[in-house]
């Protein structure tokens, strides 16, 4: 069955430092890939998505992600984090032809001043 793995449950970085959140998926074909951010008590907000084409995709709030087929990965990056980036981040896949999203376990990001 398809699955999404986010190996890091919790990451702490200093404000201004770079960030990379890992995401691996398990599926025979290339799914559609998403990153969502969730602030406490809030809904999920789409950061970026990959369907096809250029493997480096740009999203909102200065985030980007790179799809690597050989590694079945879709890691999220940001060159310099801000205190407001503290939140829970979810990687998700949509299998082609299916309607539901399958989410990873989430990575909680804490920012040190």
């Amino acid at each position: 069955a398809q699955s999404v793995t986010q190996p890091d449950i919790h990451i702490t970085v200093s404000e201004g430092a770079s960030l990379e959140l890992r995401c691996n998926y398990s599926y025979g074909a290339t799914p559609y890939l998403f990153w969502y951010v969730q602030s406490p008590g809030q809904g999920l907000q789409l950061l970026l998505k990959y369907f096809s084409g250029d493997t480096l995709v740009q999203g909102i709030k200065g985030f980007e992600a790179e799809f690597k087929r050989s590694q079945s990965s879709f890691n999220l990056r940001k060159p310099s984090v801000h205190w407001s980036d503290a939140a829970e981040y979810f990687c998700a896949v949509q299998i082609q032809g299916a309607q539901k999203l399958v989410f990873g376990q989430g990575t909680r990001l804490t920012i040190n001043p």
Partner: protein
Amino acid sequence: AAGVIQSPRHLIKEKRETATLKCYPIPRHDTVYWYQQGPGQDPQFLISFYEKMQSDKGSIPDRFSAQQFSDYHSELNMSSLELGDSALYFCASSLEGPGQVYEKLFFGSGTQLSVL
């Protein structure tokens, strides 16, 4: 801009009671999805509707039922509540129908259900 509206924001129930959660999608969105997110868990897909018909079903317990009405709002009905039903319930809406890619999927802020 209009967003996905969920009501109530918070709901407290006791075991074996029933609960009804409501979702009002963005205008012109005819597809609605329900997700359940337990404490510290990732969101799990429950059920979806397209044009008032059930379009997909996930890990939704038999005690739960849902429907989409003529105005496209949706209700999730939960009966015989159990402690394990305590979770954040998200609704999402989109313009895309079954089999299409989520070009634009919008989530509501969720209903926090606490079962005591």
